[in-house]
């Protein structure tokens, strides 16, 4: 008896501001099956109200849209704007609603595998260097410190930079209740990597699911070697870097009060504001440099966390559907070095735009493989989905704004774009049905 194959897909894009939340419904002849890909936000539209209440509304809508049952949940990576909707506080919250939809499987990147702790002695199915997860935890600690200092730095760096510091920092802070909920909401959990099975095969018959990112450390090695780096040293240096940053951040936070003798250094100091006349200019300059440093560190750690994203490719018959989370080039590079992946990318019908349309997360070498319309008048075969919010991240003058204007133009010209920024006021979600050919 032939396996049932979906005849169509519906992609629901939920308005979560700067975040991702997609429900993909596979329409089989006798039933529908639903996969939730991410649910989180760090910045909601102004009329949305409190995040927790709003995400509860979104979760309630998801429950309605999937008829009370999820086949699977995919949490592409641990950033808040992708997982805050899985939070459960005191047994309540959006995460509780999603948990009650009883997903049959939860898919996360291999970097979230709880068996792969820093001091793990038993190897998991994925070969990894000790300390990788530890460095993700260190990154979260550094992010928390950045958020804690953002308010103080507003007066020296201006509100735009301080806001970016706060929001990117916030995005990287550990979200323990969401993480725990994801780890326990289903009996089956898969921690995936390039080429691993997705865990979705049983719940989505007739659909080929392929994981093309993130690469494992072992897979990354081949790319690193190609670039002339020593992989062991590469990871060790990174782990040491974040470990030192985290220790320094922790030490800075440990200081108390503001009186004489306070501060992390073991000698008498006074408040900066009490500095002698001839040194005050230097104080302001150094505070500005320190704030700029914080921002650079936070951007760096944000990139590293983005690169743990699951890149998921569904293929049904001749159509492929690409969901890359927030993966940037470092994550993509292994996949793009594989000729069969390049071939698959040419068949992509749907592309969920990476990282809310930032300039780093739709690598041009990947974009060139997609069936982008050749001109404004050409038939637009490719459908793209962008969940974003303007004015939250980056600045146009430095060409770092998200979504990036040039990418937005390319998406509009070369594809049929669904953009949450185009949703009307109060619209909670938009559904697009796609026939499978």
């Amino acid at each position, binding site marked *: 008896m032939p396996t049932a194959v979906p005849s169509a897909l519906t992609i629901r894009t939920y308005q979560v501001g700067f975040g991702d939340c997609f429900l993909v419904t596979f329409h089989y002849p006798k039933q529908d099956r639903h996969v939730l890909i991410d649910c989180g936000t760090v910045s909601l539209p102004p009329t949305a109200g409190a995040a927790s209440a709003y995400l509860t509304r979104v979760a309630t809508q998801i429950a309605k849209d999937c008829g009370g049952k999820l086949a699977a949940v995919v949490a592409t990576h641990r950033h808040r704007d992708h997982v805050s909707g899985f939070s459960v506080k005191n047994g309540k919250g959006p995460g509780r609603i999603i948990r009650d939809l009883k997903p049959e499987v939860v898919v996360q990147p291999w970097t979230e595998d709880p068996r792969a702790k820093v001091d793990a002695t038993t190897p998991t199915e994925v070969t990894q260097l000790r300390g990788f997860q530890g460095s993700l935890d260190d990154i979260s600690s550094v992010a928390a410190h950045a958020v804690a200092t953002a308010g103080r730095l507003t007066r020296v760096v201006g509100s735009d930079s301080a806001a970016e510091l706060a929001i990117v920092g916030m995005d990287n802070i550990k979200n323990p209740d969401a993480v725990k909920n994801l780890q326990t909401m289903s009996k089956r959990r898969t921690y995936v990597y390039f080429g691993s099975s997705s865990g979705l095969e049983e719940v989505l018959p007739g659909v080929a699911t392929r994981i093309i990112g993130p690469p494992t450390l072992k897979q990354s090695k081949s790319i690193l070697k190609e670039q*002339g780096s020593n992989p062991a040293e590469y990871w060790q*240096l*990174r782990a040491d870097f974040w470990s*030192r940053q985290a220790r320094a951040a922790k030490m800075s936070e440990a*200081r108390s009060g503001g009186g004489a003798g306070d501060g992390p*250094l073991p000698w008498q100091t*006074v408040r900066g504001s009490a500095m002698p006349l001839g040194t005050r200019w230097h104080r302001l300059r150094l505070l500005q440099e320190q704030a700029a440093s914080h921002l650079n560190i936070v951007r760096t750690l944000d990139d590293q966390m983005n690169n743990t994203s699951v890149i998921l490719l569904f293929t049904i018959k001749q159509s492929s559907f690409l969901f890359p989370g927030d993966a940037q080039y470092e994550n993509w590079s292994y996949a793009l070095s594989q000729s069969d992946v390049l071939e698959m990318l040419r068949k992509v019908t749907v592309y969920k735009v990476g990282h809310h349309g930032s*300039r*780093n997360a739709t690598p041009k070498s990947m974009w060139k493989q997609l069936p982008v319309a050749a001109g404004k008048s050409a038939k637009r075969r490719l459908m793209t989905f962008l969940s974003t919010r303007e004015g939250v991240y980056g600045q146009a003058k430095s*060409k770092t704004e998200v979504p990036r204007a040039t990418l937005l133009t390319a998406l509009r010209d070369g594809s049929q774009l669904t953009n949450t920024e185009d949703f009307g006021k109060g619209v909670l979600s938009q559904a697009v049905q796609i026939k499978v050919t």
Partner: protein
Amino acid sequence: MRSFTILAQDPAVLLPGGRALTTQVWLPAERLRPGPKGHRVHVIDFDAAADRYRAPGTGDPTKDEFVGVEDIDRLVRNPHFHAQNVYAIVMSTLGEFEAALGRRVSWAFSPGHQLKVSPHAFAEANAYYSRALEGLAFGYFPSRDQTLVYTCLSRDVVAHETTHALIDALRSGFLRPSSADQAAFHEGFADIVALLSVFESIELVDVLLAHGAAGGSPLIAASELEPVKLRESVLLTLAEQMGETLTGVRDRALRASAQLVPSPHYLDQPVYDEPHTRGEILVAAVMNAFLEVWVKRLKPLRLTPRQPLNRRVVAEEGATAAQQLLRIAIRALDYCPPIDLSFDDFLSAALTADVELYPDDSKYHYRDSLLSNCRAFGIRPSVNRAGGGVWDPPLAQVSYEGLHFESLQRDPETVFRFLWENAAALDVDDGPYTRVTSVRPCMRVGTDQFTIRETVAEYVQTAQVWARELRQHGIRRPTEMPETQLVTLYGGGTLIFDEFGRLKYHVGKGLWSDRQSGRLQSLWDHGFYQGGEAAQSDFAQLHRDRVLQRRTLARERW
């Protein structure tokens, strides 16, 4: 003059028995205020991480209270020693530059006179120079065992960051984004100065020799006095003693110098595009030259080839070799072009500067050692490759008509007129915007003990063109660069006048040359035209990128 105690290297490099290894540096006996605050350096102990300030002590800052202290903890725990340590190392590095160049050096943020130095600027494993800060900032951080590590206590780190400030003072154009070599030069040269400064300390070299193959004996066997053996006993021993605590703050240049097998192919490999890694090649070449010269200096001291030598004498010869090479390297800056520097240019500049001051190099062959070791690492002189590699004197006859010798030594207007009158002879296009950026009279002492006067002047040219116009000037446009992109091209040159005001050398980088094609491609690949990039190097971030080995993939971005 007045001497100050500093750590010979850092708190990890100790005398037997764990005693502090200190050394004395001699500095001008200037008036000092608490800080210390002198006429060139002001130590301000402000911690931006905590927004806290440590007031300097009330004692007399000219009095060195740390002479003969062997308890390393006493030095590490004393913030006044930290302040003295950075003040003395910065001043001593500045002194090295001024002595080598034969003139005062103004900081890049001129008209400011005092470099601000923060010994405990922030809680991070980092240290950097910033022109905007008009100073140096040194971080501190807890080690794994929660012991505080102070980057201001590492002589190589302090000398490295001071050198960034001094290169910027002498060649501000080197911070401008350009070729891979130019970015790498800032790092490599700062390492060369830092390491050779460290090896100038006889006490330190002596201890390293005692730790190494010589096994603590007052005599060293002749078999140990070969470059390959000294590389192990001195370079590697120091690298190992310095340990891993400051990995990421300091470069791996010392270890690389000890371990890199010479090969002319490194510079062509993609991994050596990264500034710090590329800089290691230059450092390895110079440090190998240092070892070679050191050995040459020891040969005349032995009556027979197998005669062992007194360890102290070996250390003294090593320290002298380090100082001589350091001065050759520093003097080279005056003979470098003001923009788009390559390693090859630097080598030609070093050879030329040394020939001018010490024509006779037959005793220890410093130049031969430098040349052969650079060649072994793929660095070849820019000119006269088959010969000595020195810059050519001007080929065409230049005119001095209407110029006055006195003003040519100090007046940018007069130097500009010289350029204007001789544009054709010097092959300088007088169309683009041209300005003379510095005129610096110098006085150096040659081997014959006579003073040599020179005047070093720099001019810079700029032209703004649309990308579509590049081809008509013989410059290739990066494939993906839009034709409507506005591009600024830089050219310029260094003019060296002799003591009679005659032009000795013109080290020029023409504005319209195919060299610009490579520069534009490199800038395009590194995202310079995509915004979000600093117009000048940001050393703080550069240091972090070095550790994380982040690669710029501008061509993948939007």
